[in-house]
């Protein structure tokens, strides 16, 4: 490998912390001329943080970036751009009312005697657009364009500066298959021009189709780097979600599974965009068991959870808690029947960060008491005190805003509230994501207690470690269906990867 020229960009030991969380942990990475290097990982794996470091949005706490073999530091994006790096963000940054040319040339307008030379700008943009075979009218207003065309405008903004390195952050997230093909043509063209392309995604099919090399990030670390021709989707999926390295749980209760506490039959649900997200999905959860739902993000997990919890209407099928049909019951009614939900996004869904611990402990249960008027602050206080002592929460103060606690402590409060004596079924969505090991163990213990008392736990996670640590059996979701069910023993990486990749069981 010594004959290789220096890579266009090389990072050594990049580390970025946010408080106690290490978002990027000693990441080594490089991209060479004429190469497409994909970075894959689940949400929260640290991909975007890393990109923001590369693009100068964030500054790393440790580590070195080298450009053509020379060390360099970016204090801001402008410096990264000057160093020949261009980035297309996942969320487009366009001025709706401006034309394509105005957006592309924004802040770089050609001028003639102090006035913007619109025709010159339009000419430049038309030239680059033609070079990449974009079918774009430079004079069209961005607000009239579709998603694919908007992305081309974003690409033009970057390409107009002739960057040597192009970063594409989840570029296919909202594109149709046809538009994805068009994007891939552009990426191939960039590669043939000798530029380096960094392609961030969590869609493995695309990685296999377009990338030369893949780096897999997980929990802020590089867990694998492979040539695409030497790997396959299943192997990548297994790498992404991790191998079981957490010590096997010693106290797995051996309660025989009993009566059904949650049953979904033929549930069909649409996503926000009106497309079918889940089709005819059925599952059964029994008292005293933990069922893990594995799968790559975006395969209908969120929609399923919302349907089960009463936030998204079912177009077909039925949902029952114990023996009661709750298909069209509101969330409060389902909670009354013992359904609880450990929300995926604790800060926006599960907690109100400006409220104190006491008020947060009443969230969702506010109408379950006997008093229909007064807020039962005494109950909130009892529960907050109980959670604080069971979870051993440091610097506990009833009146302190939830915002003032660390993310791990916030999660303890959330789990403590949702997993209690009244819980018969709990849907736990990535309950230990982003928390430290100590907090994760305390959360596992709480869920185990719940299981021992006969509640059913439906555990959704993108992290196989988490599922393996808790689940008795594993359902794999793919494309809005259950692709297969595995016992814990049968759930090896290959099988799981194959099911998550969309192959039938």
């Amino acid at each position, binding site marked *: 490998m010594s004959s290789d020229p220096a890579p266009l960009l090389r990072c050594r030991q990049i580390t970025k912390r946010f408080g106690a*969380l290490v978002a990027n942990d000693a990441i080594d990475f490089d991209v060479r001329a004429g190469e497409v290097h994909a970075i894959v990982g689940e949400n929260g794996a640290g991909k975007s943080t890393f990109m923001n470091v590369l693009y100068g949005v964030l500054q790393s706490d440790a580590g070195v970036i080298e450009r053509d073999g020379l060390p360099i530091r970016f204090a801001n994006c402008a410096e990264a751009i000057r160093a020949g790096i261009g980035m297309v963000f996942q969320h487009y940054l366009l001025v709706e009312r401006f034309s394509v040319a105005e957006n592309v040339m924004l802040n770089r307008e050609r001028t003639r005697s102090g006035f913007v030379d619109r025709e010159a700008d339009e000419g430049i943009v038309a030239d680059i657009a033609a070079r990449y075979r974009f079918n774009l009218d430079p004079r069209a207003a961005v607000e009239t364009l579709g998603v694919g065309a908007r992305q081309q405008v974003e690409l033009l903004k970057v390409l107009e500066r002739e960057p040597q390195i192009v970063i594409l952050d989840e570029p296919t997230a909202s594109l149709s298959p046809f538009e994805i093909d068009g994007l891939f043509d552009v990426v191939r063209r960039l590669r043939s021009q000798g530029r380096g392309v960094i392609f961030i995604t969590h869609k493995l099919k695309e990685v296999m189709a377009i990338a030369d090399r893949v780096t897999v990030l997980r929990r802020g670390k590089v867990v694998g780097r492979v040539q695409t021709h030497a790997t396959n989707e299943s192997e990548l999926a297994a790498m992404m979600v991790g191998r079981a390295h957490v010590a096997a749980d010693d106290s797995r209760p051996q309660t025989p599974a009993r009566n059904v506490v949650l049953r979904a039959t033929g549930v069909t649900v649409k996503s926000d965009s009106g497309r079918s997200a889940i089709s005819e999905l059925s599952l059964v959860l029994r008292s005293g068991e933990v069922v893990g739902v594995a799968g790559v993000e975006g395969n209908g997990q969120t929609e399923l959870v919302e349907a089960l919890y009463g936030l998204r209407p079912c177009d077909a099928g039925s949902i029952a808690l114990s023996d009661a049909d709750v298909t069209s019951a509101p969330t409060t009614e389902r909670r009354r029947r013992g359904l609880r939900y450990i929300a995926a996004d604790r*800060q926006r*869904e*599960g907690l109100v960060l400006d*409220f104190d611990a006491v008020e947060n402990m009443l969230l969702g249960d506010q109408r379950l008491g006997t008093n229909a008027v007064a807020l039962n602050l005494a109950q909130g206080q009892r529960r907050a005190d109980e959670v604080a002592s069971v979870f051993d929460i440091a610097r506990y103060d009833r009146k302190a805003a939830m915002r003032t606690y660390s*993310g791990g402590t916030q999660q303890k409060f959330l789990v403590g509230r949702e997993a209690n004596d009244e819980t018969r079924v709990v849907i736990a969505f990535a309950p230990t994501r*982003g928390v430290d090991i100590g907090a994760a163990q305390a959360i596992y213990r709480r869920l185990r207690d719940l299981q021992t008392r006969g509640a059913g736990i439906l555990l959704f996670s993108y992290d196989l470690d988490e599922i393996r640590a808790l689940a008795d059996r594993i359902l794999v979701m793919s494309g809005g269906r259950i692709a297969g069910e595995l016992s814990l023993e049968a759930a090896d990486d290959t099988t799981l990867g194959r099911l998550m990749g969309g192959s039938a069981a």
Partner: protein
Amino acid sequence: MKAGRVLAAVGPLVGVLVASVLVILVAKANPMAALGALVQGSFGSVQSVAETFAQSTVLLFAALGVAVAFRAGLFNIGAEGQLVVGALCAAVAGAALHLPKALEVPICFAAGALGGAVFGLLAGWLKARFGASEVITTIMLNYVAYLGANYLVAGPLRGSVSAPETAQIVPAAMLHPIVPLTRLTAAFPFAIVVAACVWWWLGRTIAGYELRILGRSERAARYAGIHVPAVIMRTMALSGALAGLGGASDVLGMLHRFNAELSPGYGFTAIAAALLAGSNPLLAIITSVFFGALQNGALSMQAIAGVPKDLISVIVGLVIVYVAINRFGMRAALHGPPSDDLVTRDEPLAEATT
């Protein structure tokens, strides 16, 4: 109430004071004399204090209405219109009904509250049903209220030959001064009781709790099983009812009849009072009295120091500017501090901000 919040409410006042001195200097008057006259006129004697409280009464009701909406994340610019509708309803009830005072007064207040509530509910329904921004609809409904009331008192409801006004309310509906030679009536202590009730309701009842959850996070509200459209409508009705009480207190306590010009912009000053109070109903008492004092002292300032009383409008405007840039500014009052999505969108937010 924490000391920090009190300080945050008082801090801007000091800033405004400094700015006011500069404004007075520009008007070529002696700032000490002018401010002295202002303070003397608003707090210098029992009568002037009483008059200050009288001037604060309508403002306080309206400010409570605005504050309640703020707490639910709703920006009710329509307190002015709701107040006008409430005043008209109270005036009509007060002129039409002939009941004993113990019934007449509460019924007139209830009529005012009901009128304001229905008018507020209209904006709430438009938002809940069609997603129409309450900022736009309440601004527009202000014109509907003002011009509609103008038409009614000029035509169907005209009760006076000399001016476009309703008939005078019956004596049983009138509130009488509790300090002689002033316009201070029982409406002011009533407003304070209402403020305390609103404070209690927000903090200690399930309905108030749900309203506050919605104000902090609509998603959290949905996940807590709250029917968001219902809370929006309920909140706007309550907000309008409080403003409507203000209109009723103006008619019953001060004017004894309705004309469409009765409000000198109470509903808008109320927004400033609510913002300055950080939407806290108890602090709103203080901020409403502050603005009431400014209005009341302005006349003395004009008479004694020769500073035009319209300068007070400039000072009120300064307070609003100050509040807008303060941490209790509109963004904070409505949505909490801005988040930096660009940096943290891939990472759990807590870890990124701790």
